[in-house]
């Protein structure tokens, strides 16, 4: 039993981190692809793009991603959060497969299996490294001597 097991609420936040980033990216991509090419000569077009529905939705999702990502980093290790959130790519690929009926190549299936394995590995371990307070560490040093 790992010392730092997560509460259901914390799993929910990790889930939001995982799903909101790829979903937000997809919304931005969809929104921007629908617009005519934007050049640096007309930066105003970029401001106008922010207020189109898909781009606005993408930005809202990415703000939600950043807020929940910061929250996750406040109680879990970076090396725990990053692989766990990579699972979002798998969720999005599977949604595209079973919901939108997109086909997944053998190579991409292999990627899905590897990410799932990696996330399974990291999820079994503790989510946070225990850093003893300086005086505690000294006390431990004395004990081991």
């Amino acid at each position, binding site marked *: 039993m790992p010392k730092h097991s997560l509460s259901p609420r914390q799993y929910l936040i990790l889930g939001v981190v995982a799903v909101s980033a790829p979903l937000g990216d997809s919304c931005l991509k969809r929104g921007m692809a629908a617009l005519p090419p934007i050049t640096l000569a007309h930066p105003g077009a970029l401001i106008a793009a922010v207020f189109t529905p898909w781009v606005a939705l993408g930005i809202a999702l990415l703000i939600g991603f950043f807020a929940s990502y910061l929250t996750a980093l406040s109680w879990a290790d970076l090396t725990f959060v990053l692989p766990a959130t990579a699972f979002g790519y*798998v969720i999005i690929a599977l949604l595209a497969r079973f919901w939108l009926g997109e086909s997944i190549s053998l190579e991409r299936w*292999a990627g899905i299996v590897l990410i799932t394995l990696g996330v399974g590995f990291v999820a079994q371990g503790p989510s946070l490294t225990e850093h003893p307070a300086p005086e505690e560490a000294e006390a431990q040093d004395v004990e081991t001597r």
Partner: protein
Amino acid sequence: MTTSPLAATLPAAINPWVAAAMIAAVVLTSTTGEVLTAAAMKSIGDLDMIRAHSGLKGAIRAVVTCPLFYAGVFFLALAFFSLLFALNHLNLSLAGPATASLTLVTNAIAGKIFLKENVDRRRWASAVLVCVGVYLLAH
């Protein structure tokens, strides 16, 4: 993003060293940003507890008054723009997956060195598996 006028004026074949340097710039800035942001959040403490104690405003205040947080965001922004720059010059199917997957491994190394995180065999294995997996899935 992929059909910018800048990309059209560049030669089709790019020196592999230049491509590697562009990808390295994205990976370095993004790893620096992630580590600084993670250090900032660790220094603030459990945000859920802060929010339960002093509300959403209190939690936001705790984050925006932390100087390390701005250092992290600065490097994450730098990483974002260097990714845009790289995407302008390199093939999207190379630059995107390459930076996303390499960052996982560099973060494991940086997390161990700078954040003193306990990157055990389980986490190394996970970083490498997810790294290869992200590359295959996004390629």
